[in-house]
């Protein structure tokens, strides 16, 4: 009886191993809310060319996508920030691979203000003071005498992390910052609030005042564009990534190759981000 049980269990292991070799053409992509529209457009375009392939795209934030990659619940992780060494180590310990990082697009973290706001330019040090709460009135940065209302993202967002690291120098956001679930919500809030300011991907900057950003106080200000991002003059630009557990093979490899092709990069431009090649 016992021997039969052990033999049955090992037969199950062998069968499961064999099943593990079978290729499946259903891919799941999870992660960055900044990239969710871009990822959906990629998926739609790729599926139209490959009818046998199904790609399911969901958001939730870069942190959520990275956790899903480590837990094995997604095939593709979209991330608007690079994975941390600790996250890479978790992936390595669980799956034996360091993960594969694919740079798919470039983005400039854009500073959104209400169209009625007269402030045209802000420096990185001023942005830090605004978002950490040290400055709380627009008159402190050359604007009208009105309170600054802060809109930002949730802490699972890659944009939240990137902005915190590169603009706030890892200091905490002001407690008055209103956190919103997605860049589109930040843009909508700032459009409705004459005293509002927010940040997010350039792809969402529609119908809003884009504030010029300078690296230093008194320096030349820039808005994100293909030119200012590629020549490095826009001070808060970043890559948008795809992370995979293993080196891609089969349909997954075809999909990644296609994203990096002229066709995939054209979609990057259509959505409002900047192609990497």
């Amino acid at each position: 009886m016992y021997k039969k049980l052990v033999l049955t269990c090992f037969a199950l292991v062998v069968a499961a191993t064999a099943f593990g070799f079978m290729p499946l053409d259903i891919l799941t992509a999870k992660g960055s809310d900044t990239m969710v529209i871009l990822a959906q457009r990629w998926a739609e375009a790729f599926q139209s060319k490959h009818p046998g392939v199904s790609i399911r795209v969901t958001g939730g934030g870069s942190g959520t996508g990275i956790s899903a990659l480590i837990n094995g619940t997604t095939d593709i992780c979209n991330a608007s920030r690079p994975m941390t060494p600790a996250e890479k180590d978790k992936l390595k310990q669980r799956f034996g691979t360091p993960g594969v990082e694919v740079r798919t697009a470039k983005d400039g973290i854009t500073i959104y203000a209400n169209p009625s706001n007269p402030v045209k330019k802000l420096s990185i040090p001023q942005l830090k003071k605004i978002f950490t709460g040290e400055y709380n009135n627009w008159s402190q940065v050359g604007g009208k005498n009105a309170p600054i209302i802060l809109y930002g993202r949730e802490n699972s967002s890659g944009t939240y992390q990137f902005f915190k690291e590169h603009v706030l120098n890892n200091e905490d956001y002001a407690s008055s910052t209103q956190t919103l679930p997605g860049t589109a919500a930040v843009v909508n809030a700032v459009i409705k609030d004459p005293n509002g300011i927010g940040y997010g991907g350039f792809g969402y900057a529609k119908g809003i005042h884009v504030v010029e950003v300078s690296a230093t106080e008194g320096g030349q200000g820039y808005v994100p564009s293909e030119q200012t991002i590629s020549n490095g003059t826009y001070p808060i630009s970043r890559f948008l990534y795809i992370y995979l557990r293993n080196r891609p093979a089969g349909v997954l490899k075809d999909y990644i190759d296609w994203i990096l092709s002229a066709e995939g990069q054209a979609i990057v431009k259509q959505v409002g981000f900047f192609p990497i090649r």
Partner: protein
Amino acid sequence: MYRTICLLLAAMAVSLQVGYAQEQDTTKTEGGDELGEAVSGLGDRVTLIENDVDVLKSIKISGYVQADWQHNDQTSDLGGRALYYDSRKDFFQIRRGRIKVQAKYGLLMNAVVQPDITESSVSLREAYAEITPFKTEDLGFTFGSFNRPNYEVERSSSDLESIDRSQVVKTFYPTEYDLGVMVWSHPELFENFNPKFQLALQNGNGPVAETDALKDLIGRVTFPIPLGAESPVQIDLGASFDYGGIPQKGDSVLKTVDGVTKAVANDETGGMAGWGNRKNFNVESQIFLDLLPIGGTIIKGEFLTGSRPAAGTAATGASVAVGKGSQGQDSVIVKAGSAAKPLQIRNQMGYYAYLIQNVSNWLQVVAKYDYYDRNTDMSGDQVKSFSDAATGVLGLGAHFFCANMRFSLWYEIPTYAKDEVAARNSKGDITSTDDVKDNRTTIRVQYKF
């Protein structure tokens, strides 16, 4: 006259209209103010709620439950010759039930409390506070009950690829956790090169009250070989040590010299008779290979060597001669009035090696060999008891992952070192076969939340 009346009526009408319009404007303004105040009040309430939610979000509750079914081939220890045995033969058990509560205050502070709950006991495992004064994860201090710095110890039991830690690790780092303080640093010296340094001072007594003044100094350094982020081969190397001791009042210790246990001067502690040395040095390596299309491969292992003191064979008392005769020891005189036994210090070594193959993202097959020599100064006929024997365990298993669940099947085959088996055969301890039937099968269901 008629014209005058018409003008008066027109003037009255205009004045009435103006008055009505003014009234309407006033009402509108008042309504606008009320709406503005209501919105402002709602905004304040939302801010308060968000602040409360932020506090709650800083508290994270996680944990896991491991429920086992275990079958033991052997139900008796056969006089110390069976490594795995259980008189129940087959049984269910809660191997671990952990709930971890973590409170994080930004990048500055972090506190963790983790009890272990099983069907027979509740015990404290982790309970520590971590401070990162520079608000980065590069440098920090840990205070309380936390894992001793060692590769297999620091890996959560819920992530271990074998059903339990290796024999030598369980001996060198019993209970895994200890009370003390640790400084650690994990700087990114250059891109993709993050060495990790840990230095801890701990009681050396596990997560229970300290019984003596002696402390253990434990250190570990790990670093990756910089092969590049794109390389399909990643190699991590590391080394760790533990230096501590336990007290004794005798002026000699028992040690194995030329295969015989005898009393010798306690010279390893610099002539100080007050304590017995506990020390070990370990080297480790983990190799990660992304070469096969089915999934990543991991080859990893650690070699540990050192000495462990244990209570000697002498009785306590004013003046005691120990074990002369069958064990061949010399006499050990315990100082008058002392209640302590002389310590027996054994040189030991052990190692473990894993071969892990992932097959897609839901199946992992594992082979592990784990060897532990309890007394490296004895071999062959010299081994007379299990306390000096060497044992190896070959473990074979598979893990199935499904969302938060992990189903594990694990089969263990213990063996004794060849020379000692020969020794026992020569003494007639084992007559029918060299290998005692003490294999063990475990089926585990783990839920992690």
